[in-house]
């Protein structure tokens, strides 16, 4: 079966990862930083699935599944931290969370 080349998928995954990296560096709202991290995780998932499909490496799908699990765990803890941060500072801004620096 002729198909879309693997190179297209991996390049797309790299592009999504880079866009997520821009979000992580540039944004100051931790929720948006979180979503950018999720975007990067998704890009990695996409490349896992691509390799699993094109290199006949079926375990790639298992790794992607575990990665989704880790992302869910990360979101549960991270959002709790963000809500706790909002409670103590009354605003959500990573620049405001500099207590340990001072």
């Amino acid at each position, binding site marked *: 079966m002729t198909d879309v080349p*693997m190179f297209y998928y991996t390049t797309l995954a790299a592009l999504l990862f880079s866009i997520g990296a821009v979000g992580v560096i540039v944004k*100051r709202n931790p929720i948006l930083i979180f979503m950018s991290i999720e975007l990067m995780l998704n890009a990695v998932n996409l490349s896992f699935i691509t390799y699993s499909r094109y290199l006949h490496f079926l375990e790639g799908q298992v790794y992607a599944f575990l990665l989704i699990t880790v992302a869910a765990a990360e979101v549960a*803890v991270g959002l709790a931290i963000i809500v706790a941060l909002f409670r103590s500072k009354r605003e959500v801004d990573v620049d405001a969370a500099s207590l340990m620096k001072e």
Partner: protein
Amino acid sequence: MSPADLIAIYFYFFAALAILGALGVVVLRNIFHSVLSMIVCLFAVAGFFVLLNAEFLAAVQVIIYVGAIMVLIIFAILLSTRIMRRDIVQTNAYVLPGIIVSLAFLVTTFFVIISTRFVEDYHVPFYPAWLAEASEKLDNTMIVGWSLMATYSLPFEIASILLLMALIGGVVLAHRKEDD
């Protein structure tokens, strides 16, 4: 129109959707619009999973990412930010350096991708031969389920312990003490 053409058309459609969604997350000023744009991007990635014969993961992607994680993020926004305020500055002072670093990463990765020769038909030694042979005929869900329950049962159990830890951690962190 041949099936290969159709797959290519779907690929470009999902690619455009994913890139636009991802750009929307970074570019849009209203955080709630960013979330909606992120959901579009996640759906597009689920479409890629279907194109890549990973139907189980496409379903998992839609259920967990769109159904659980994004709803959780919307709740966090609800609890923590005043989204309707227009004057919130969303970016910090590192816009230009951030874009430069990410572009450098993209270009490096691109050159690594085009210069790598991948080993086709990589053979995994501890993967059962009957499953590898049957994988063309079997359901994708069955293959993933078999792998998770047999070969990768230890990582699967560790993942459930991790989820339990995250559950307890989330409750402890978000718990409001009675005296404040």
